[in-house]
């Protein structure tokens, strides 16, 4: 097919990010300069974000058989870009004290975002695979970025090995689907599923894909890598992993299931419901006894994706909207939490300050930073006045609408368990300081871009919690063009 101008306009965000990767690489080849690399990255990401507005003028549009740009993909691209921007900001503060090559990090990050954006827009198995690998491979490097540090290296290796296994599942699943339906387009697969026939192979294929994607989303029982990687990877990278990669994969999952509906199939439907329920409960239970905040967030992310999976199981009129709203609130909150951890651990000096004792009495030293953390914990727990509550409200609403009482009960029980550890983190911020040696953010953290960023996130979480209507209207408009 011929590419017209409108196709190029639709592709503009991807092109801009690709160009930025090259510019940053050339910049590093010419002269190593940390601030310059970071600035170029930020400029590139912002330009891509602005170019999404141009993309909106031509949506919905299909570019080559691989990619579909509709309002839905634009929404998640924007979210991925914003999260990447936040992670860049955090990484800049964090890497200032890093005694090794710092600039390559930004290239990895940009590559990964590119992969995420491809993934979000893909309507074809090939694009799915390219996007997923383009997103994941740089993540290995990012997780192991502080490779002299054993835990970081371990995190990178672990993620790589298990990711490779998941990719194998994914490819096998695709092969089965292709063998049965003769097409790699989501819509084509959906059509052949509706025809029935050799049901079993299609089902096995979809099942394999669910395993692979479930691994990326760290759903129970594919969650075992999560806490180790979250803990080992440097905080800004954990933030990236927890937000960009999760949201891209979930957006894809929804698109896959909306265009190739399997919800009519009882077995798969039940399997996904069980995965959702198990994720809620197991994630929360395992988080209970953690003293390391990064591990705790790893487990809590398992639970949150379990809540979110309710929307997929329900697949009703609210489902896509729920995913959008929940993802926005979850991404904002997770970024804020990791942001605080990254700021307290910045500049880099060995293992991150993620133990709860590091945060004891933070309020009396850094009131705003502690206030941000409080807001984020309340939001993760889903307390009113924070964005997290709106997300939880949607998750419950979507479950109630479809009468999924078990999953609704799972959300309620999971939230009750979750409260315990979120509150434990939160109250520690206000207690009097213990005897332990403590790490602290640098004095001028507030002036640093990272500090401003987490404050903005906290304000966003509060504003969206009190007045979510604009966000809901925006997400309502982000409809998916199926087919």
């Amino acid at each position: 097919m011929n590419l017209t101008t409108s196709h190029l306009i639709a592709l503009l965000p991807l092109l801009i990010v690709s160009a930025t990767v090259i510019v940053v690489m050339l910049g590093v080849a010419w002269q190593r300069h940390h601030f310059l690399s970071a600035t170029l990255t930020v400029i590139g990401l912002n330009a891509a974000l602005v170019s999404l507005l141009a993309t909106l003028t031509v949506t919905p549009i299909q570019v080559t058989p691989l990619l579909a740009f509709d309002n839905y993909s634009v929404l998640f691209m924007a979210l991925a870009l914003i999260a990447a921007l936040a992670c860049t900001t955090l990484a800049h503060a964090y890497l200032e004290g890093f005694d090794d090559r710092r600039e390559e990090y930004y290239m990895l990050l940009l590559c990964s975002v590119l992969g995420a954006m491809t993934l979000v827009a893909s309507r074809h198995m090939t694009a799915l695979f390219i996007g997923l690998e383009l997103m994941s491979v740089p993540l290995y490097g990012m997780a192991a970025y502080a490779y002299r540090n054993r835990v970081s290296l371990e995190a990178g290796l672990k993620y790589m090995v298990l990711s490779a296994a998941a990719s194998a599942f994914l490819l096998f699943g695709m092969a089965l689907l292709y063998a049965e339906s003769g097409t790699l387009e989501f819509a084509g697969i959906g059509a052949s599923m509706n025809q029935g026939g050799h049901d079993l192979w299609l089902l096995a294929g979809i099942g394999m894909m669910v395993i692979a994607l479930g691994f990326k989303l760290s759903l129970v029982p594919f969650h075992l890598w999560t806490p180790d990687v979250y803990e080992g990877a440097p905080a800004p990278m954990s933030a990236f992993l927890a937000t960009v990669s999760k949201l891209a994969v979930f957006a894809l999952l929804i698109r896959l299931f909306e265009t190739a509906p399997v919800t009519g199939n009882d077995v798969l439907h039940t399997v996904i419901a069980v995965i959702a329920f198990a994720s809620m409960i197991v994630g929360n239970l395992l988080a209970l006894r953690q003293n390391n905040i990064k591990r705790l967030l790893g487990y809590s992310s398992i639970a949150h994706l379990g809540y979110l999976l309710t929307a997929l199981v329900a697949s009703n009129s609210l489902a896509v909207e729920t995913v959008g709203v929940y993802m926005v609130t979850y991404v904002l909150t997770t970024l804020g939490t990791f942001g605080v951890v990254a700021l307290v651990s910045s500049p880099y000096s060995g293992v991150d300050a993620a133990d709860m004792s590091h945060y004891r009495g933070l309020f009396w030293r850094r009131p705003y930073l502690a206030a941000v953390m409080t807001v984020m914990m309340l939001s993760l727990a889903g307390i009113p006045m924070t964005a997290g509550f709106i997300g939880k409200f949607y998750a419950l609403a979507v479950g109630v609408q479809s009468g999924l009482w078990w999953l609704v009960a799972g959300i309620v029980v999971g939230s009750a368990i979750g409260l315990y550890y979120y509150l434990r983190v939160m109250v520690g911020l206000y207690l009097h300081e213990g005897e332990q040696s403590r790490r602290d953010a640098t004095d001028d953290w507030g002036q640093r871009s990272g500090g401003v960023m987490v404050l903005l996130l906290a304000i966003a979480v509060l504003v969206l919690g009190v007045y979510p209507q604009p966000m809901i209207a925006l997400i309502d408009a982000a409809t998916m063009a199926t087919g």
Partner: protein
Amino acid sequence: MILPWLLFLPFIGGLLCWQAERAGVAPRPIRWIALLTMVAVLVLSLWLWVTGDYQLGTTVGSEPDWQLQFRLPWIDRFGITFHLALDGLSLIMVALTGFLGVLAVLCSWQEIDTRIGFFHLNLLWIIGGVVGVFLAIDLFLFFFFWEMMLVPMYFLIALWGHSSQGKSPVHAAIKFFIYTQASGLLMLVSILGLVFVHYSQTGTFTFDYSVLREAPISGVFSWVLMLGFFIAFAVKLPVVPLHGWLPDAHAQAPTAGSVDLAGILLKTAAYGMLRFALPLFPETSQAFAPFAMALGLIGIFYGAVLAFAQSDMKRLIACSSISHMGFVLIGIYSGTVLALQGVIVQMVAHAFSAAGLFILSGQIYERLKTRDMRELGGLFGRMGALPGFALAFVVASLGMPGTGNFIGEFLILFGAFSVVPWVVVIASIGLVLAAVYSLYLMHRVYWGPPASETSLGGLDTREYLMMLLVLGLSLLLGFYPQLVLDVSHAAMSEVNHWFVASTSSPLSS
């Protein structure tokens, strides 16, 4: 515009206190800011009391007869509005909240000496949340405030609480939070269920009280939804199998926290039942009434026995609240106008007497650094006027004629007798137990051999006036309950109408 002011004043005042502390203002002005905020809320609500006419509206229509309304669009997607409304019932509760808010600020005047700005931020935000609960008439908004007030209460207990029996206050605070939040989520699920039932019938989303009240649901589903509401309220009230958080939270909260907890937080539950659980699910509530009353009876006796077994003074008072709330539960579910009126009086009277007792035990704690009754004794004559006030509040708590508590309990039992005579007969025995544990408290703390003869310092002017005021109000309520009854009559008739209409004429109206 007076309703949003009533609601937002405490929030604004709280922020002012916090910022004043951050700006390095001395403690005393901060306390004054908090006090003036609360006085403003109280004055506003009293002004509404005096100027409004709450006796009208005996004609019960489909649209509730609000004195004042305030409505703003909020989340259009789900038809959620920022809808505040006031009738006699909410007015009484809001005025009570304002008054207890003033008391809470006053009684922490000397008790709290660390992080004063942050303390008052939390205290005032609790009050703000409670006022929100009493005014919100959109179910989403109601839930919003219902959950929101937990956070400052959590901080209040966790950060300014006392350790007791080797347990840290954080433990009690987390327990309180999890109990109430988890049950709150059940209510949210019920609200959503109700909304979606309405949505499936009409195709529009709304969380509006008066619309949802008309939503016809029946069968098992309405039982499930009703229980969702009931459990949320039962945890807060508390009803016996769900009361586990209460003694700990009370024992470890600072005095102001206990006053707020016993005085108004428990009342939000009773309010919720009167406003939402009964009118939204009249038929199932009617069918559920025998179980609810049985739970109320268990609460009366279990609370009394539990109170008797305590050695911590504040735990004793806390357990006695369980017993008193048992009467409230029976009153609510008997559903006659007389009993419902009694419930209102009982709630107000209990707020006064419990607040008085909690403040007194706080004052004893300030002087002796213990609340353990095994170490106390013989305080009569050593503390100026304090034991005298204690005696007055103890007899109020056991329901002596002349105090509001008597009127409340009498009206509840009298009103319920026509419906459930046997329940009333059994509940009356609970009154005897109330006398036992109350006098036991009096005996162990104030009489008996004194530990020493030295004077411990009587009440200063602030404390004296505070106690005098509470006592005066308690007596006023006892001798002239008509003040409250007039205001609440229309609202209670309406509750009664919804409740009774469901059985007598299920098809009409």
